[in-house]
């Protein structure tokens, strides 16, 4: 067998790939579930924190800033490990899936809060003043005048950050989550062949490359004119 054939036989072994394809596919489902949960809860919590911050209650702000700084400083893997291996000692024992979901959601919450907040504060005071002086309440001003403008500014940094955090779903392997990498790794040890890993890699590309391309398109659409 030529060198090339041997390479294909090893890394792209059709028999092995066919055997473990269902596992990889179910891994993709888990990855997608995780990613969607993270994005929805993370962004939602981040926006909620930013809105709370706009109330300008000092002690609350300090708490928010502390929480945000905490989750921006800690590596996501550390948070996952702490939650999965450590939390049981205090009572609750979240599954690998829940640990990964919550950890990454907290991280996205922290980063997105900062981005939303920066967007809100960059809207000039004059906008608030004009709106309030026509009789709109704080809430109405926030939702009808400020947030729509802030939204445009926050899209590019937000898409970038969201993508890089949801790629962290692969970290779930470390706590036995049956997402793509987890499935691929076990398949690889069972078959003593790296083809499942190549499939797993392909699965990630299939999932995330379109998202990155879409993000580029979104960023271009919302780009600032110089």
């Amino acid at each position, binding site marked *: 067998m030529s060198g090339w054939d041997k*390479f294909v036989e*090893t*890394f792209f072994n059709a028999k092995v790939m066919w055997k473990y394809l269902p596992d990889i596919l179910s891994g993709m489902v888990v990855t997608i579930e995780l990613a969607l949960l993270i994005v929805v809860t993370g962004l939602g919590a981040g926006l909620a924190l930013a809105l709370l911050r706009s109330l300008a209650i000092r002690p609350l702000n300090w708490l928010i800033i502390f929480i945000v*700084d*905490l989750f*921006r*400083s*800690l*590596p*996501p*893997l*550390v*948070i996952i*490990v*702490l939650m999965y*291996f*450590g939390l049981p*000692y*205090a009572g609750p024992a979240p599954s690998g899936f829940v640990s990964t979901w919550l950890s990454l959601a907290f991280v996205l919450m922290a980063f997105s809060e*900062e981005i939303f*907040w*920066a*967007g809100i*504060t*960059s*809207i*000039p005071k004059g906008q608030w003043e004009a709106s309030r002086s026509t009789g709109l309440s704080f809430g109405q001003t926030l939702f009808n005048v400020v947030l729509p403008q802030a939204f445009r*500014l926050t899209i590019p940094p937000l898409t970038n950050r969201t*993508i*890089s955090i949801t*790629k*962290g*779903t*692969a*970290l779930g*392997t*470390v706590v036995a989550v049956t997402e*793509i*990498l987890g499935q691929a*790794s076990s398949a*690889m040890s069972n078959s003593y*062949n*790296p083809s499942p*890993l*190549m499939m*797993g*890699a392909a699965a*990630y*590309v299939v999932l*995330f*490359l379109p*998202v*990155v*391309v879409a993000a*580029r398109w979104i960023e271009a659409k919302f780009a*600032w004119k*110089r």
Partner: protein
Amino acid sequence: MIEAFFNIEIMKAAWPIVLTGLWNTILLSLIVVPLGLFGGLILALLASIRHPLVRWPLMAWVDFFRAFPPLVLLVLLFAGLPFAGLELGGFACVAIAFFLNTGSYYGEIFRAGIDSVPGGQVEAARSTGLSRMQAMRYVVLPQAVRNVMPDLLSNTLEVVKLTSLGSVVAVPELLYEARQAQSITYNPTPIVMAAVIYFLLLWPLVRLLSRLENRALAGRR
């Protein structure tokens, strides 16, 4: 609860191991950050060549490595390459994976920085006889880097946090050592120690970044 998470006895016992891990994390960061910056700069300079035959493959490369989860890349190198006869140690795998992944992120940041410098600057420089390279080096890059400094710092922060991935391929950095200590002592205190150390190490940069980011976003409007 203190017994479980802040156990003084265990803290004393685990300290040497955790300290080793910290040093390795710092060492690792000092290597992969410049590697990534270098890779990114090369990518951005290549991108400034407007030829489509250069731009398209380049953009594909960058998008690929931004889309690809770094952990998967790392595992691919560490567990997959041996099947091709190449047994790179954990450390080498981390270096390569990070070079590819963070290089792409830094590349995008540098590229955005270069694009943010007004075209008139290059025209003025070229009109006084400076070559393309000279204009890039003395006029464009200094301004480009200044413009994207917050993003560069932010990404560097991410790279340092990413070193924790080394724990998955047995690189003896902070998280790995902490987990070792935890499995020996059956107590999560070492991991809490590691978390506290990460926090103390990185929090000042996070605070600084927060300030810079707020100023940058406000300025752009």
